[in-house]
């Protein structure tokens, strides 16, 4: 079935992926490959299907056809929580955190232990958990707010908290949907610094509109347009692609 068997080193292999909503193909015969430790940025105009691609990979949306292989596992057949356990982490576009819980508790819930019902009933907040939570809290600039309820954080801090929640999960593939949207200039710089630190030893798939930010972090850029790949390659190559300039960068 696979057209041209892909070598093993790809962490993520998306092939012939299609999803149609009542006949409208939001993602149409899409194929791309992400290597270990690669930072891939997906850009494209509104409605290009960028968020849908992340939804498909993390299982939020079911594919109509095609395959998503992650370390040789077929993700389209797994449930959302199994995909997470396989090593895929996802950050949503709007900060998705638990406002009625403290920063500590938010991070603790993402700690990858005691994820079953009985596991969570017998979960102990031991030294290893505390140490890891504090370590991550420091990374996301929230160390002195660790016992603050999350509803009192600023928008940028909430974004960091969610990034921290993914970090503690320690995924092999981290998917970020517009991580710097709505942030102030200084928050943006700090976030870039944070992302540069956390992308070590893992692959990252980012959706972002901020071209400056994309240039800073991307190894490779994929440009989506109407559910299909318009162009793919280094930022330099993509920037000079006349098709990309026409549909996206031109205006």
């Amino acid at each position, binding site marked *: 079935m696979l057209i041209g068997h892909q070598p093993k080193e790809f962490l993520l292999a998306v092939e012939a992926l299609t999803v149609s909503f009542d006949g409208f193909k939001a993602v149409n015969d899409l194929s791309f490959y992400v290597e270990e430790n690669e930072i891939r940025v997906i850009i494209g105009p509104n409605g290009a299907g960028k968020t849908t691609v992340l939804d498909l990979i*993390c299982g*939020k949306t079911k594919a109509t056809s095609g395959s998503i292989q992650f370390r040789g596992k077929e993700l389209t057949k797994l*449930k*959302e*929580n199994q995909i*997470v*356990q396989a090593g895929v*982490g*996802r950050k*949503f576009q709007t900060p*998705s*955190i*638990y*406002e*009625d*819980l403290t920063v500590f*508790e938010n991070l*603790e*819930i*993402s700690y*990858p232990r*005691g*994820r*079953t*019902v009985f596991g*969570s*009933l*017998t*979960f102990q*907040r031991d030294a290893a958990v505390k140490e890891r939570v504090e370590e991550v809290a420091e990374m996301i600039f929230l160390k002195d707010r660790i016992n603050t309820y999350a509803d009192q954080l600023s928008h940028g801090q909430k974004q960091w908290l*969610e990034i921290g*929640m993914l970090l503690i*999960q320690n995924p092999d593939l981290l998917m970020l949907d517009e991580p710097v949207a709505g942030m102030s200039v200084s928050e943006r710089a700090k976030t870039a610094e944070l992302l540069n630190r956390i992308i070590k030893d893992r692959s990252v798939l980012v959706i972002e509109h901020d071209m400056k930010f994309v240039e800073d972090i991307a190894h490779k850029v994929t440009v989506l347009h109407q559910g299909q790949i318009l162009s793919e390659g280094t930022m330099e190559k993509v920037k000079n692609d006349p098709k990309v300039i026409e549909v996206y960068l031109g205006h």
Partner: protein
Amino acid sequence: MIINSRFFNRSELIGFVALALLLFVILPLSLDVFRLNLVAKYLTYAFVAIGLVLCWGYGGILSLGQGVFFGLGGYCMAMYLKLEASSVANTKIQSTPGIPDFMDWNQITQLPLFWKPFHSFPFTLLAIILVPAFFSFIIGAAMFKRRVGGVYFAIITQAIAAILTILIVGQQGYTGGINGITDLRTLHGWDIRTDHAKFILYFVEVVLLFGCIVAAQFIRLTKFGRILVAMREKEDRVRFSGYSVANFKIFAFCAAAIFAAIGGAMFTLEVGFMSPSFVGIVPSIEMVIYTAVGGRMSIFGAVWGSLLVNFAKTSLSESFPQLWLFGLGALFIAVVLAFPNGLSGIWLDYVQPHIDRLLASRKSKAGWGDGSVADGAPAE
């Protein structure tokens, strides 16, 4: 004290002690057996309300069908008591002696198969827990695995309450129909109708109630409890943090069902009968109101809510039978609009600060020389 102060924080500890004093000492000393038995009846709803605090208050799963599980527990107990009351000697005037009277009236000549195990008391005790656990598991799995939630779940639980009522009423020969299972006399040979028995049963119930309070508090304090809150707020975030949201909801719903069933079984013992009027839509909604009035985030609030609303119900419906339902409706609207956290919210917002201030001023007057620093005192 060290264990206590970790298991309950200071204000919860005060709540625990106050409730224990009221239920174990003050009420038994000050009320006659008739009134104490009424309190016991009110408290059976507190079991349901505690379950709703976990399931609805923490987990955000509003069940408007807790009467189903209250009823299942109650009917399991009633079936055992009824079989004991229907000995051949007691029922020799029937055309088929040895079966419950309502079966005889309905021309049933043999004890139905599903009644037979209820001759055994241990089986009955197990059934009180396992039957509602099983049903809530089936309902929960069917709903939550398909991602049915919120209002839709509430409506479906209402429908289930209506269905079970119709089933019980319709299958008169097997269930006693609209009258329910009445004329219950002894538990394992012990007459439950005497004043002495009612007194003992009251204490058994209060002990069980405190068992449920401790169990609910335990669940609330584990990571499970925090995941319940997280699910209520951002279900998708929990799901994409690697948890099977459906399994957590099923467990919370089953736990609430088991609490409700224990309450139902105690209701049968205290009141001496069980009927479909405690199963259907109206009682199920009333149980949610008790929880809302007490405060849906507070385990102790649930107990107070059940006691106070039922007390008001008894005293008001004695004098103004027609007005009571309007009163209940108005109470519910008032709580939802003005005090979304119910009595416990009022306590925490208005009463607790005064107490803290009072304690703080007394402490500062006494000075810091005594060397003991209470946990509520500011550090340094």
